[in-house]
């Protein structure tokens, strides 16, 4: 019993050491990698909308989505949110005095501080998507509420999926 545990532990340790090695090698680029993933997706979805004059007025963003959802324990922006985020980015790039606050959230499963970090990464993922689409970092503030401010209460996937989110709020137009 103990020996099987030990061998399992050693095998896992070997795998993890390898994974950790890979991870640390890409320390500097992971955030970039995630951003470029997002950028790639965004480009695929957004390259068609090339008209330069549109996107600068409040009417262009007033009815866009402002809440973006995530999968469990993931901080990758889903593709269905890309086009609206690009439009928000376009508005920000054409209105330098406009600014947004990105509030990251997690569902209540798991520990509070881990979820705080997860909400932060989700807000950062949305931030990167806005930046690669033209917004300036100075226009964006991120904050994580972790699991402290659920949108919907309840112990079921229906509630959890609504709570794993980033809310985009305009601080100034």
């Amino acid at each position, binding site marked *: 019993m103990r020996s099987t545990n030990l061998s399992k532990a050693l095998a896992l340790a070997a795998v993890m050491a390898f994974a950790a090695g890979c991870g640390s090698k890409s320390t500097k680029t992971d955030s970039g990698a995630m951003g470029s993933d997002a950028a790639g997706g965004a480009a695929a979805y957004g390259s068609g909308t090339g008209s330069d004059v549109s996107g600068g007025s409040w009417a262009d963003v007033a009815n866009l989505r402002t809440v973006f959802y995530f999968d469990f324990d993931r901080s990758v922006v889903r593709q269905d949110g890309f086009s609206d985020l690009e439009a928000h980015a376009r508005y920000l790039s054409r209105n330098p005095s406009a600014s947004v606050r990105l509030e990251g959230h997690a569902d209540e499963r798991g520990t509070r501080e*881990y979820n705080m970090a997860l909400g932060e990464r989700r807000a950062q993922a949305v931030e990167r998507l806005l930046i690669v689409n033209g917004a300036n970092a100075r226009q964006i503030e991120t904050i994580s509420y972790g699991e402290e401010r659920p949108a919907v209460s309840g112990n079921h996937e229906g509630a959890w999926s609504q709570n794993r989110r980033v809310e985009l709020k305009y601080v100034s137009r």
Partner: protein
Amino acid sequence: MVRAIVCAFVLTMSTWVSAQLVVEVTQGVDSQSPIAIVPFEWRGDQALDEDVARVVEQNLERTGFFKALARENMLSFPTAQSQVFFRDWRMSSTDYLVIGRMESVGGDQVRLTFELYDVLKEQTIHSQQVSGSRTNLRDLAHYVSDILFEQLTGIKGAFSTRLAYVTAESLGPDRQRFRLQMSDWDGMRPRTLLESSEPILSPAWSFDGSRLAYVSFETSRPAIYVQHLATGQREQVQSFPGLNGAPAWSPDGNQLAMVLSKDGNPEVYVLNLSSRHLERITNNSAIDTEPFWAPDGRSLYFTSDRGGSPQIYKYNFNTRAVERVTFEGNYNAAGRLTQDGRFLAMVHRGSSRRFQIAVQDLQNGRLDILTNSDYDESPSIAPNGTIIIYATQQGSRGVLGAVSIDGRVRFNMPVPQGDVREPAWSPFLR
């Protein structure tokens, strides 16, 4: 940078709240020692506010080591040795007997003289006189409980300790009230240390019990605060852009580990509180959070998802090496160590897909799951290592649960309103 905020408007010291925790034993054991705590004699003009013998009885029962004889089954109520007939206590299958007498010794002070007997041997195990304030009889009861527990088990009692925890109440749409509370170990005598409409989390005791560190969003952003419990004085110690979370004290009280995302990603840092020097500990693209110190101060444990799922890792200050500590299950987080450094309590999710409190023996790697519900989190260990308190759910409400470190005894501490969460058990306070 460092702002001392003395009694800020959000700070309401010494506010006594009527909502008290109630302990229920939900799972017992067979091997409890039968004990009888006879009501203590009181020869005063006015009745006392607390039934000291009852508090002692509840304390001992909640450890899971003892089963107390109900008062209605006692054949007599001796308060002095001359009134003790061991045969009566043997008939009611009592192994240990405690009797006592209380008297006023002038002013606010009362004195309790008590004796602990071994019924089978018909011998006195221990007798002692203790005195205390009449207005704080629970302090006296907890102190006597500590003495009795140590006499009977050889383990230092942890009844004179405190809990810090957070409560959250919904006051309507988008309106919540968060409170940082402190109570006796059993949830009695709660008082509010901080009240806010914004989240409060992660209370952490300094190893000497004099200070609490915690995270408050009161400025609309997370910041780490340190509050001195004796004076109520507090200061904001860290408030970078991004995350400021998961404070954890070094054993010597001079350093605070924490999680910051100021450099772009949640990473563990250590802040020297006197020099203000900030050292980055982790450097990884994954989430690194929930640091906690080994009691010997030589290493720092933390949670990381660098291997694909959250697991607990150990950082060695001398070698700067990081090694993975947990391997069973796909979610192990929020670890805490016993004072001897041997047992690691954590939130564990294994094949059952439930979040449960588990303990890993770091000597042999053995993992035991101690709790039995779906959403258990925030384990905190009594300073004597006997009980783990944690946050769980009853219905849809957050309550505190407690389980003995061997998993044999569990009980819940519900509150009448709101969610209770994030318990933090104090160190020994005397």
